[in-house]
């Protein structure tokens, strides 16, 4: 006698199961993965409808959209994993435009053989990060590639946010005399990845700073300070971000090395590996270019926020036809802080 319950489908084995090609085939296996993992974790009405796209309500204000692919290796690192990183990275790109992030899409490229347990851990981390940030993952996609053609999982996310009236932030708005504000220490994310990847153990913990910055940014906008540019110094680090802004705005910059904070374990690890923290990635820091008269007002609200307690002015925008970012060294000399040449660390985000 058949004792199986009617309509019973054996659930996915999240303990020992692995991704196989059928999970990306568009058939029943894929539908099951979506419903038991993605829809369950992200849990919202848009996904529950099961349509090809999400119909979003009309909003008041201009829309901001940003996209980011995440290929970090290793997938799990001290302070985070590819899941929360793929939420924070895209939210931050929307937020530094001054917008309130509302929606995310998520696209997964899975490698055949990837453990479902790891995938579940990643997706739940994503869901938690999105929930904490007040954004909804409204649509998604899953593809599976053959073993050896991927590296476990790649996640691409796109974010949509709404921009309040009167906010006008852009990389081309820095002007000579503006001050350059940094929200905290640099190099934490990149070194967390590297120490994990290379199996390097340092006696002091090195933890990624991955975090969603839109709450901090909302407070900064609320301060009334005249903000020109906001940007999160991710790949290429602080040096690369400042060079991008200098180029877009057609200005130069003069930094003060002594004002740029680096956590002692990060500094020691960089020293040990021959890396310059100015070029090491961050995932929870931002650079603000602000009118000089408003610096104290801006710093006050930043330092009152848990993600920017160590905010400080690190330099000034200057007129320079060559667009050089320069720095007064702690020693008292001067140097260029150039674009990153080649790659400092592969696959950090």
């Amino acid at each position, binding site marked *: 006698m058949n004792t199986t319950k009617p309509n019973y489908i054996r659930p996915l084995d999240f303990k020992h199961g692995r991704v196989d090609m059928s999970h990306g085939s568009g058939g029943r296996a894929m539908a099951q993965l979506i419903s038991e993992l993605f829809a369950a974790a992200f849990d919202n009405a848009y996904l529950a409808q099961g349509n090809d796209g999400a119909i979003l309500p009309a909003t008041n204000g201009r829309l901001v959209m940003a996209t980011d692919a995440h290929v970090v290796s290793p997938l799990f690192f001290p302070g985070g994993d590819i899941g929360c990183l793929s939420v924070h990275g895209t939210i931050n790109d929307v937020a530094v435009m001054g917008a309130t992030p509302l929606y995310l899409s998520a696209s997964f490229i899975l490698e055949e053989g990837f453990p479902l347990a790891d995938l579940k851990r990643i997706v739940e981390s994503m869901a938690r990060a999105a929930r904490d940030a007040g954004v909804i993952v409204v649509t998604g996609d899953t593809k599976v590639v053959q073993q050896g053609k991927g590296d476990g999982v790649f996640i691409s996310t796109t974010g949509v946010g709404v921009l309040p009236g009167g906010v006008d932030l852009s990389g081309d708005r820095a002007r000579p005399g503006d001050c350059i504000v940094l929200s905290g220490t640099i190099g934490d994310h990149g070194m967390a990845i590297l120490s994990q990847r290379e199996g390097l153990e340092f006696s002091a913990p090195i933890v990624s700073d991955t975090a969603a910055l839109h709450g901090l940014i909302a407070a900064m906008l609320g301060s009334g300070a005249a903000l020109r540019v906001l940007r999160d110094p991710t790949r290429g680090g602080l040096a690369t971000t400042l060079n991008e802004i200098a180029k877009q705005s057609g200005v130069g910059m003069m930094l003060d090395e002594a004002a740029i904070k680096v956590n*002692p374990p990060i500094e020691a690890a960089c020293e040990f590996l021959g890396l310059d923290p100015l070029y090491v990635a961050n995932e929870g820091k931002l650079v603000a270019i602000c009118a000089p008269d408003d610096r104290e007002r801006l710093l006050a609200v930043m330092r009152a926020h848990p993600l920017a307690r160590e905010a400080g002015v690190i330099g000034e925008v200057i007129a320079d036809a060559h667009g*050089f970012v320069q720095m*007064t060294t702690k*020693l008292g*000399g001067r140097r260029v802080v150039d674009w990153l040449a080649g790659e400092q660390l592969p696959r950090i985000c």
Partner: protein
Amino acid sequence: MKYVDEFRDGSLARNIAANIAREAEPQRTYRLMEFCGGHTHAISRYGIADLLPRNVQMIHGPGCPVCVLPIGRIDQAIRLAREHGVILCTYADTLRVPASDHLSLMRAKASGADVRMVYSTQDALKLAREHRSREVVFFAIGFETTTPPTAVAVQQAASEGSKNFSILCNHVLTPAAMHAILSAENTVKLDGFVGPAHVSTVIGSRPYEPFANDYGKPVVIAGFEPLDVMQAILMLLRQVNEGRAEVENEFTRAVTRDGNLKAQKLVAKVFELRDSFEWRGLGSVPHSALKLREAYAAFDAERKFGVGYTAVPDNKACECAAILRGYKSPQDCKIFGTVCTPENPVGSCMVSSEGACAAHYSYGRFRETA
């Protein structure tokens, strides 16, 4: 003491700078060569030139391992990876040095060669243990600092009976290069040397004594931190002013007169002198490099795979050769910063951050626009 920022202190730097300014006699010019790329990098990165009087000039020397590798040596490594299908391992900067046919090891990798960056010789040896069916070649480059770890790896491979590990030996010798600079025709005018830091921890300060005694050039061995370099400059100025030519040691926290005898013994056991070796910039220099001894011939990739060395001329517009001899500065090169940049280096000096051109491009090029 953590040895991270103690030797980068701004107020101490200002003190030394004031002493240098007092010591420098205004009517004379001091031309000092920092032999090592580590010093070149420190001078550029910390902006030491801004703290020196105008008449104290630093001339960059050839002590940058990837800079002095001639094109033919990189070609050899590429041939091993492409034609012999080996896993070719090397230190990072070497990957970007331009070779023949618009290639570099990095480009060879992109076109399918199995080239891997390693942090140490131990990583390469580990790869050989993990891939028994593949040949693993370590592209061994560098001065006396990187030679002992290579010797250790070769000895380990020998004692393990490894059949698939070998090295492409390009280890070179600092004193030989200094002799070549000082004995060249049209020799560059120098008043003294800031002597090597890490190299000297291995070979000690004794090998520099002929430069003081025979050539009359003061040598001050200095660490790679900015305060070390500044203190050494001050010590050199004092020697010049007092008419002395001695080997002095600023880097006493790490360097002795005899150096690391254990490392020297190990190196002597595994390696012997090559009759001659071609350097970029210095040309063929007798007894200036090492090769594996006969007893370790099985680990010599040149013999194992029969890849001979073919000399290849440098790009005609590239001034690396003159820059490595201290004859020209990066700014004297027509293609500096235009055709030749860190992203697309034409010459080797634009590759490593220790190279004179890369250091000037990355840290100091605002000076030409001032």
